[in-house]
């Protein structure tokens, strides 16, 4: 009897926990949607901020976010795929190189994002960027300052473990007999990987991209010091331009505004736009993946 009471109690507790989570999500989404909805209009999405952020829209921030995420994807996906191929196809599991690089990737995933921001400032902006300026531009400040490219690279380092893990899982899931068939036909290992294994792991590569994008679009800390701008009168056009970003813009609106009450509706709108944008990016990638899966499934 006592055990049964305990059992019922636990189920009740678990149910309450679930209810709590669902309720929290509902409150967050509901609050943002209700307050943000009336703010979001075509003008809000397509115009630049005005009169000290209390009026106008957020187009530069949307533009900057999309650009940042795209650029980051261009950097992180090839690099992540290359590392995953090494781990899955080439590495000798007992070699020190494999064990050390595996540990490095695991630890990379655990580093707080603000530390990536500081790393980006020290390594990309000052060391790499400064080095480029000294050697190519005669010391003139060109790349040695916070910029879009450094922010994208910093974000790429941050999301690298996510891509590696998901691509590696996909490579491992490709049945061994495909590799055997290819090798037995006189294909080299590299040919086997690029013509047989990787095409079948395409869904995993996309999943890696999706996860990196949704992680990247939501992070603010890594780009605080390496390129995100408080306000810019024009859109970034070159890799060494600074840019506005939605997450950072939210931070700016909520803490750096001279009149917080006046920016509140804008803040709600911006948060809603960020949520929808992340959601849309994810949805696009998921749709592509589903189509690939369907194409593969039809053949099975």
């Amino acid at each position, binding site marked *: 009897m006592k055990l049964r009471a305990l059992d019922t109690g636990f189920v009740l507790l678990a149910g309450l926990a679930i209810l709590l989570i669902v309720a929290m999500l509902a409150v967050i989404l509901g609050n943002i949607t209700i307050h943000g909805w009336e703010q979001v209009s075509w003008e809000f999405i397509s115009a630049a901020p005005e009169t000290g952020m209390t009026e106008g829209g957020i187009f530069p921030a949307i533009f900057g976010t999309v650009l940042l995420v795209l650029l980051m994807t261009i950097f992180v996906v090839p690099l992540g795929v290359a590392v995953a191929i090494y781990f899955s196809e080439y590495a000798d599991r007992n070699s020190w190189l494999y064990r050390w690089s595996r540990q490095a990737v695991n630890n990379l995933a655990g580093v707080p994002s603000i530390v990536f921001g500081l790393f980006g400032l020290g390594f990309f902006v000052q060391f790499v960027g400064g080095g480029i300026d000294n050697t190519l531009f005669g010391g003139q400040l060109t790349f040695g300052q916070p910029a879009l490219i450094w922010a994208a690279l910093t974000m790429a380092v941050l999301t690298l473990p996510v891509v590696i893990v998901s691509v590696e899982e996909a490579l491992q899931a490709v*049945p061994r007999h495909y590799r*055997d*068939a290819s*090798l037995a*036909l*006189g*294909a*080299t290992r590299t040919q086997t990987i690029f013509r047989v294994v990787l095409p079948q792991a395409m869904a995993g590569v996309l999943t890696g991209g999706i996860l990196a994008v949704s992680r990247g679009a939501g992070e603010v800390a890594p780009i605080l010091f390496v390129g995100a701008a408080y306000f810019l009168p024009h859109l970034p056009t070159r890799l060494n331009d600074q840019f506005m970003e939605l997450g950072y813009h939210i931070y700016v609106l909520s803490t750096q505004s001279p009149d917080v009450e006046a920016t509140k509706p804008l803040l709600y709108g911006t948060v809603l736009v960020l949520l929808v944008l992340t959601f849309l990016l994810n949805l696009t990638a998921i749709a592509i993946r589903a189509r690939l899966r369907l194409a593969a499934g039809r053949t*099975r």
Partner: protein
Amino acid sequence: MTTMTTRDFPLLKTHVPERKRAPAELTAKMDIERLTVRYGPRAAVDQVSLPVYANLITAVIGPSGCGKSTFLRALNRMNDTIPGVITEGQVRLDGKDVYAPGCDVIELRRRVGMVFQQPNPFPKSIYDNVAFGLRVNGLVKSRAELDSRVESALRAAALWDEAKDRLRRNALQLSGGEQQRLCIARALAVAPEVLLMDEPASALDPVSTAKIEELMFELKKDYTIVIVTHNMQQAARVSDYTAFLLTGSLVEFNPTPHLFTTPTDPRTEAYITGRFG
């Protein structure tokens, strides 16, 4: 299909159509000498020596786990892909040891093709499956040449009539038996000299199996074939020479009619009459 007579295999309680061409003289296409393959301390193949005669079918039989697949995979160095495998002894192809340093493994695998137990076409079109080996080896110069070699490989595998109208369709839409013949076509496309077949019909229904066996008779005119099978009737039907392996060791290697009617070793007789295995 040369004659209508049959040969008795009383120990197997089976008759096999008599259609073996007696070759004028035997030439060894491959020569296996004291081949030992180890996974760690255990020898999966232990000091096996036998010839593989040109333009004949050599069957390797034995109970599960006797090392017959490992033996077959040693002939085109597919065991190299498994970490921790150690191979000793010699496997000579046209007199040259394939395990000698400096042997081109890629070229070896092109010359010694392989068909696996499970049909394993790539999830690509029928055409691209057959063209795969030609493309990766850079064996064709033009699209027309590729087309014609794909067609002749499919014809050689007796799949052309079924596949010619759906070359662009995904290979995984084919039936199991068709998939296996596609895998044979894929292997033949790169013009190998030896074809290794690892239980090629064990996953197939009897009709498909019969087609594969029929095909082997045709192929033997142009290729040297080694087939691993656990099906003794199949070995008796298709092969000219049979090797019997037991726990990694070669027990008996003899002409197939000889091995199945008057086996030299009592263990061979015990196995083929079903007393163990």
